[in-house]
């Protein structure tokens, strides 16, 4: 069953997390912007901002993940 993860497996699971994280953050940002737009009638401006902010959020999450090894000992704000 689930042994302690070897480096190959750890790397693979990390790689699988990163890609999805980027895409989904952008999509969620766009979706939020779209909903706010249809609510406030300002199409398409909030959606544009949402895509950008979502992209930033995705990169931030990936950055946190990629540097989590060094931070592991100190604080635990894992995205």
């Amino acid at each position, binding site marked *: 069953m689930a*042994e*302690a993860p070897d480096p190959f*497996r750890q790397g693979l699971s990390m790689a699988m997390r990163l890609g*999805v*994280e980027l895409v*989904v953050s952008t999509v969620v940002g766009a979706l939020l912007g779209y909903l706010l737009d249809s609510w406030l009638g300002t199409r398409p401006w909030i959606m544009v901002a949402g895509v950008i902010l*979502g992209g930033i959020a995705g990169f931030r999450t990936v950055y946190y993940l990629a540097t989590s090894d060094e931070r592991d000992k100190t*604080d*635990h*704000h894992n995205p």
Partner: protein
Amino acid sequence: MENPLEHFALRPLIPLHLFGLDLSINQAVIMMWVIIGMVSLFFWAAARRPQLVPSKIQSMAEVSVEFLRTLVIDNMGPKGMRFFPFIVTLFFFILFANLLGLIPGSYTVTSQLIVTGIFALVVYVMSLIVGFRIHGLHFLTILVPPGTPAWLLPLMLPIEIISQLARPVTLAVRLFANMTAGHTVLYVLFGMMLAGGVLIGWLPFGFTVAVYLLEVIVAFIQAFIFTILATVYLGDAIKLH
């Protein structure tokens, strides 16, 4: 044989309509029963005759439960042991769903977005409830990363809200996409083997075997990732930074 996504379609086997809801029994429902049965059988067989020097199946169960225990304590602290039964159940259900789905002719329940979506939603809503219960309204400071300068707040707040909302979505989409993609690739390769005949068919067949082995690894890893992230999200709610 034309549409490689056809085998994901659910057909009602026993039609059942109650209170205006379609509760028909389909392949996915039956597979979930089989999964519950197999997991129960596995642990029953493992705990049937506990020995100091464990049998093969007993040591398999012991190693994996021990491993999940360190995972829970690492990510959620000793307080998180309350969620240990939930985490173990989650891991084994997803693992067996992924593995049993690889048997030709069976059905992969984790290839349905609604199944993984509900799992992710349960984990996420649970973390929200736990967070608000332990920290009250103070839990909202999870939206402010520690050490954020005040002038950055208007920018950081929307970003944090988006990344919070993305959590359940990534959880659901990752498992669903990996399972669906893997099974589609297997289906296409196997179809190429059938179309190729004896002369050239051995080539896609070799790839089918290779991808199948990869899918076994993916089945473990995806169950593992889902469980890790569940503990991390719940741990964030318990510890709050």
